[in-house]
């Protein structure tokens, strides 16, 4: 049962990932990216990490995808999208073939290395799930990694301010406001 769901989710994610890369329309790319993010979330649930799975779906499939949709709509370039398919098909450049070969080579070497390693794996600890696991996560997050947690908080604040500063309009006469950026 677990095997079947793993293969199903894996195929779902690989297909959505490929469609993200090969879709011509940015909207379609973003849609398939949301599907891929949902697949990642399901995978985390399968890996006995329900908290990370829930956060993944909330942040990525929810917030990041919404932001992407906003940006795609804000930066829509008229008269460009229909032309791109033929344009792209005619010009499958040497660089694209080269990067495809590069990625395939990287994938091949990664997979062959991963197949050679014998990991010393352990079985799941029976009591360590649900609330016990969440208590473990909080103990780590607010104990051993409390300083890193604060630093990440500062980073998010800095990114927030930076995004607002970057995307705001200087003159009010300009039509679109930059407030939607974050």
């Amino acid at each position, binding site marked *: 049962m677990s095997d079947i769901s793993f293969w199903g989710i894996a195929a779902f994610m690989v297909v959505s*990932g490929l469609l993200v890369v090969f879709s011509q329309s940015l909207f379609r790319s973003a849609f398939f990216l949301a599907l891929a993010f949902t697949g990642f979330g399901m*995978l985390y649930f399968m890996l006995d*990490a329900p908290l990370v799975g829930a*956060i993944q779906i909330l942040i990525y499939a929810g917030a990041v995808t919404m*932001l992407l949709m906003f940006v795609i709509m804000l930066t829509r370039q008229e008269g460009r999208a229909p032309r791109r398919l033929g344009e792209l098909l005619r010009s499958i450049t040497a660089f694209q073939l080269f990067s*495809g070969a590069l990625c395939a080579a*990287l994938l091949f070497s990664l997979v062959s290395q991963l197949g050679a390693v014998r990991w010393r794996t352990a079985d799941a600890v029976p009591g360590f799930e649900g609330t016990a696991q969440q208590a473990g996560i909080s103990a780590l997050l607010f104990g051993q990694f409390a300083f890193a947690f604060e630093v990440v908080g500062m980073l998010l604040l800095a990114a927030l301010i*930076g995004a607002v500063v970057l995307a705001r309009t200087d003159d009010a006469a300009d039509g679109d406001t930059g407030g939607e950026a*974050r």
Partner: protein
Amino acid sequence: MIGLTHYLVLGAVIFCIGLFGLLTRRSAVSLYMCIELMFNAANINLVAFSRYIVPQSALGQVFSLFVIAISAAEFGVGIAIVILMFRRMRKTDADVASRMGG
């Protein structure tokens, strides 16, 4: 039986898909999508190691939470840059950005 290697190989596959997109796509927005795909592929490894190597602790899950937070920060700033680029040059192609250096 599904083991650690399966998850790692899946992560590697998705990472390479994202890398290919990063190399070949032109629009800056789709570059960010591919970067997010690569971040998530790395996250699978962290959670899978956490589950299979140290199941008695949630270390890898905490790391993956940090990765999610940092990629969210990166994404926010990147999207702001894309909006700025569009406003200045009316295009979001990444090769347009090479003109920004002056």
